[in-house]
């Protein structure tokens, strides 16, 4: 199997709509994803800059403000396949569940990106719950 599939999640004690304002905004990923230093969005194209200085081009596939789902793919040639998916799910009680999934070929990349997304969820929760 060549596809690596990694999923991380966190529960945030803030309403889904509030969390979605930040997590669902493709221009603000660098504000809560440690190791990403900048984002530039032009239509459906986004270029993120990694902490190592490497630019990474992406295509935005889904931005669904009703179901609170954001989906994108990295288009750099090293990736044969990539899907990044952020879901913000309302769990009631002014809380939400945020799920960040990474599916990737080469699969080793899924581990590296996936651990970054886990760190991002930690940071998102910290920012939301301390604001």
């Amino acid at each position, binding site marked *: 199997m060549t596809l690596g599939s990694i999923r991380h999640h966190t529960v945030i004690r803030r309403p889904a709509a509030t969390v979605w304002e930040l997590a669902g905004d493709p221009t603000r990923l660098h504000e809560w994803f440690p190791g990403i230093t900048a984002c530039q969005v032009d239509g459906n194209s986004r270029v993120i800059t990694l902490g190592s200085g490497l630019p990474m081009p992406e295509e935005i596939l889904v931005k669904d403000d009703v179901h609170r789902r954001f989906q994108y793919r990295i288009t750099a040639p090293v990736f044969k396949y990539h899907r990044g998916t952020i879901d913000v799910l309302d769990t009631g009680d002014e809380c939400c569940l945020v799920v960040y999934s990474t599916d990737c070929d080469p699969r080793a990349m899924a*581990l590296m990106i996936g651990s970054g997304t886990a760190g991002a969820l930690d940071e998102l929760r910290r920012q939301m719950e301390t604001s």
Partner: protein
Amino acid sequence: MGRKILFITSDQQRYDTLGCNGGTVARTPVLDALAADGYRYERAHPQSVVCMPSRSTMITGQYPSTHGVWMNGVALPVDAPSVAAELHDNGYRTALVGKPHFEPFLDPFARFAENRFAANGMTGLHRGFEHFESATHGALGPLHYARWLAANHPEAVGMFFQVLDMSLEVSAAGGGETGAPQVHDNAVPREWYHTDWVADRTISWLDSLAADDDWFCWMSFPDPHHPWDPPASELGRIDWRDVPLPAGYIEDRERREAVLDTKPRHWRAWYDGRLVSNYEAPASWVPATLTADQVREVNARNAVECELIDEAIGRVLATIDARGWADDVDVIFTTDHGELQGDFGLLFKGPYHVDGLMRIPLIWRPAPSSGSTPASVSRPVGLVDLAPTFCTIAGVAVPDWMEGAALPVDDADADRRGFERVLTEWDSELFGVDVHLRTITRDGWMCSTYQPGFSHDGSEGELYDLVDDPLQQVNRWDDPSMASLRSNLLADLWDHQPQMHSPLRRVEAPV
């Protein structure tokens, strides 16, 4: 003024690669002389047979379950306990030069300090090391050696073996004259190779110290870990055609496979190419294709790398002599784990707790001024005992968080202080394949038990008589006459096995 400590590690080096341990391929006169003047340990085991957990044990003096680096790719927290910090706090000048690997190398987000150090032009303070210059096996990546090579000898960067393939898996590409995996002819001049760079940078740091400084220097060579790509200028030292096949390589295929079939099923599954349970072995390489000549060529190149390390150590010791420190320096040499290197028809490493990976070289040459008596120590010891040893040498109280004890100086000392057993752990999870293994070695027996995982239901194990079966070819786990012994060993194992760190630390990268 106290005793100074030169701590030397190699990476993935077998016990039998040193002349003092019976090796016949590599010439290692410097290490042999240190062994003759000090303590040579005949049954030293790592607490993990992969780099990051094992190196984390060296620096913390803790088992993997305690420090929490349970597999490669899990980062040791920057504020984890560190023997270097302990010594630094007690007035020692401290340095690490060479391979650290307490944090993942594959780090596109530059989230880990070790990978940011060279990029930011920094050399310390990190984990108690006031001087920190890093290197790994190749010429790519963010570490100091790669940046030095790219800045000063850019033409050499492409000469090294490319450790990862286009899929970012450990490369199975072959080379040399036999096509053996990870064998490569490297045109880099010897003086630019990482072994000599590590020695050069160590010498430079030592030269920066005042004569009366107390110091602890961890000189950490990336070799002889694969790839086997030493400078081509040095290959003439050993003709692979003259290299004997290792005792653990069973030439007869039918017998080899019969031996593998007596072990838990992941052994044979890997050999046949049906299962690669860990990232450290090339995913697309099938061990059953390994030929006797490939084993010879791998062993020849490995031996060349061991010789280069031995000579580099000799240069550093000459510097220590020239500084007038020779009588006051303790030298400890070891490695993080072994290498299968042909045993059972296998290469590389993985969840296979046998001597090829578990029995490692360990030499402690005390400072001559200490008046110690040379000895060979046959009782089991572990890398978990290194950090307390460094503290003892330095006259620093051994902190409570260290789980080992200062190394024994002979068997009587070992018996007096309870060196009866050594434990080794394996845990891994990679794309749905998990393996969990615990091993105890005591009283001449090695006993491994597998916990439930992808290939195992929790009933499997391995039991070897290290005296009558030194190559671990007869698994006595299911031998009814061994039931009582097996049960006693397992009871002792679980009595001494630390609980796994909770919560489980996150896997950040494949390596």
